[in-house]
């Protein structure tokens, strides 16, 4: 079994009792599901747009060679990196600070 050698049930009980624990879990969970939903919806829309309206996607932007499809594709690539950065920034910043403060006060 993988359970670490020193399960500290007294410490765990104090964390459970702390309202900051419940608040942290709730906030982080809401944030991660929101971003998951955004990712799934945006990606599904992108695929659907390609599947249902190819002429729209092929339309040039500003009369040049670059089309809407190329712009949206680039936005998808950059957006994927950005949404990861948004999550990591908040999780490694705000959430980790709240967690550290919580653990420091119950230990």
């Amino acid at each position: 079994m993988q359970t670490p050698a020193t399960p500290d049930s007294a410490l765990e009980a104090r964390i459970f009792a702390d309202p900051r624990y419940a608040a942290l879990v709730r906030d982080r969970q809401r944030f991660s599901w929101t971003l998951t939903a955004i990712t799934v919806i945006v990606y599904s829309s992108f695929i659907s747009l390609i599947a249902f309206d190819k002429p729209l996607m092929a339309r040039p932007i500003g009369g040049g060679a670059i089309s809407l499809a190329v712009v949206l594709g680039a936005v998808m690539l950059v957006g994927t990196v950005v949404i990861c950065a948004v999550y990591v920034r908040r999780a490694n910043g705000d959430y980790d600070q709240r967690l550290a403060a919580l653990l420091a006060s119950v230990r």
Partner: protein
Amino acid sequence: MTRNLWRGAGLLTLLGWATGANAAIVGAMQRQPTNWTAIAMFAGFVGITLWITGVAARRTRTVSDFYTGGGITGFQNGLAMAGDYCSAASFLGITSQIFNDGYDGLIYAIGFLVGWPIVLFLVAEKLRNLGRFTFADVASYRFLQGPVRSFSAVSTLFVVAFYLIAQMVGAGQLVQLLFGLPYLYAITVVGGLMMVYVLFGGMRATSWVQIIKAVMLLCGATFLVVGVMAQVGFSFETLFARAIAVKTRLALEGGLSPAAAAAKGRAIMGPGGFIKDPISALSFGFALMLGTAGLPHILMRFFTVPNAREARKSILWATVWIGYFYALTFILGFGAIVLISFNPAYVDVAGALRGGNNMAVMHLAHAIGGNLFLGFISAVAFATILAVVAGLTLSAASAISHDVYASVFHKGDADPTKELRVSRITTILLGIAAIVLGIVFQKQNVAFMVSLAFALAASGNFPVLVMSLLWKGCTTNGAAWGGAIGLLAALALTIVSPVIWIAVFGFDQAIFPYSSPALFSVPTGFLAIWLISTLDRSPRAAIDKAGYPEQRLRSETGIGVHDPAMH
């Protein structure tokens, strides 16, 4: 395989290019004259990685060393993940796809990238906080070890087997193509080197092989892109405009009217024939997106970093490098249209690429950097396959030694020395199996196998992982049997889909008309886990549910996390 079969396989065949199998390489291929520059460059790469393996071997003493490599940073792990994920075939396949049809190549690339945020948001930090060596550590955390770990091991072997066959066959064909070596030599070299890396260097050597390969691939591709952009005055508008002009001229020479030729030229800027059937497209998209979060060799990489914080950073870096890599392949594809379309050294009179359908980026490398750079890019492509197969082998060996041998047979009390020995014996057996499978499947259409691996991972591992981490009602029976049902559903739907039912068994009509099962098999997996857990009235079910709050607390806070650098 015949050209007709390729067309019949349609979407999946095309997808195989991007997913790591080598559809186009199988298609039309001529063996090249032996390329000594490429072989020398590759020998240099092998020399460096073997030296690293030697160093790693001296430091690989414990099971933890073997499985986790003693710990690396999030940045290093991100590079290693990118090295694990960007296959040679996606480099060659996507660029050639764009060279032929324009925009469509980008659609695959995006599908591969969007899996990473899902891994980050739903599983990465909890996985790191609870696990030690394999994702089964996490999936079975609060459950009866035997059933859940057995499921995980079987599922890992399925996913790895399909992924590995595709890579081995691809490797053999690629080496034949790039180096002019016979298929059998190529397969044996790949299988042998992969065994050496994993056997002696474990995760430490595998990580560094992947990191070095990622840096080589990114640098090589960047150099090529700079070369391309210098030719068009560093203007994307000029690049695309010239690509349209080239395609228009080709269409005119092909006998089309000026208006039709202009339309054909412009068509490369928009989506073409790749997505015909929206259900198949979405289903495949979901397999890629959710499958990434269930690939055992990717999940295993999270245990090489010390904590959740570094695990998150790994994914951000992996996403940055993989996204950058796909952006480069897009530019390279258009660069190839502009720079090699009218050069008889690269394209024959019929307009086909010399040396096979997948050679666009290779010719581009030659056009920009001459023979030396062609050799470098060829060596990078081969190194890429080695890095991917080493990661796959390590994850399968861990499933056997850690999940089956140590946890199921010995109930977690296995002698670590013996566990290490079992993982090394397994590595040798897997290496031999990989070589044999590579030979057996040499003439088969393996293009769909990587997409099948993604679909299996999305339908089995992914639901089990998500439900065990996030749903307190999940039980041992639910996870083990529900996961197995999801896995089997994906397998069964693939067998009755056109790519097997029509192309292999010769039936007229496929029972399941779509090219990827994920849109149906992933919900099946989730539903089965939910239903079996809900109906589970066994005494064990009560223990499973009671264990949730503690598991959740540890997964959220990182209390009791296993640091790979501590023994």
